[in-house]
């Protein structure tokens, strides 16, 4: 803990702001029509490590397994989707992302970097839910507000396998994703995001039952 500066706690005694570590703030947000495969969501490049959070959709699963980078910049986010729908997303980065306010509060660390600015919209953790979700299984998670909050599902798991339909084999790419069930329930489950035909049997997988759903408000 720093021996100088400021520490702000909430009414549970939990630290919200200190003079050492950077808070995370909304950098940009948007929506995009997804067609139901692997698609990139483009955002304005950011140079600091971002968080990409999405709203859950009631009809289709989706997940976010990958950031594209160019040099040291993060340029877009890959989304795997089960079907066609509109994806709502928010991107968060550290430090001050808006112009310096003409009033309010700005806190800097010992390196003179901004760790908090009252002009920004701060990422708020509403819940962190750890689950074991095996391939093909589902887990319903009770959340604070599935209508308005955004979510991150980690770690990414995927599976590839084929089934014989002579004379061909149909292959299915699956991943673990999230789906909206009701205003307080998010389902974690397995979905197909790509399928096709191949000449023979394919079996491959990197599936890990442990996963964490992070609920984010702003």
């Amino acid at each position: 803990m720093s021996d100088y500066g400021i520490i702000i706690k909430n009414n549970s005694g939990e630290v919200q702001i200190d003079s050492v570590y950077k808070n995370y703030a909304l950098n940009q947000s948007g929506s995009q029509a997804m067609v139901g495969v692997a698609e990139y969501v483009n955002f304005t490049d950011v140079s600091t490590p971002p968080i990409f959070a999405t709203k859950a959709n009631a009809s289709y699963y989706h997940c976010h397994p990958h950031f594209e980078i160019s040099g040291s910049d993060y340029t877009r986010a890959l989304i795997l989707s089960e079907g066609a729908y509109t994806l709502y997303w928010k991107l968060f980065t550290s430090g001050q992302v808006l112009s310096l306010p003409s009033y309010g509060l700005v806190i800097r660390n010992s390196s003179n970097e901004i760790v908090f600015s009252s002009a920004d919209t701060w990422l708020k953790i509403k819940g962190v839910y750890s689950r074991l979700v095996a391939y093909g299984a589902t887990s319903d998670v009770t959340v604070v507000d599935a209508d308005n909050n955004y979510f991150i599902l980690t770690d990414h798991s995927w599976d590839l396998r084929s089934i014989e339909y002579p004379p061909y084999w149909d292959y299915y790419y699956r991943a673990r994703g999230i789906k909206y069930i009701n205003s307080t329930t998010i389902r974690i489950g397995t979905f197909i995001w790509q399928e096709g035909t191949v000449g023979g049997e394919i079996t491959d997988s990197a599936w890990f039952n442990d996963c964490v759903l992070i609920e984010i408000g702003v």
Partner: protein
Amino acid sequence: MSDYGLKVFDSGGNVTLDLTDNITRLRYSNVVSGGASSSTTLSDIDGKSTCQFGIALENNKTPHGVTRSGTTISWTARAGYTTRPSSNTLVLVFLYD
């Protein structure tokens, strides 16, 4: 009104930070190489809540698994059996209390 804490309003008078909010602070970030598993000790997270995870930085590859045990954050390379090898991964650790 409480006699402690901080309440922040925007120029429209809307509350953007309240006394009950948990806002998060970035404690640690690192880009780790595909195939390499390792860990780091963050002694100051003792007794604090964190969330930690990894995001792949290469397409069609598999990100590391990121876990916490005590004050140790570990990242473990993961891959498919034959395809989608281990990816360079952005490891993030956030404090939220």
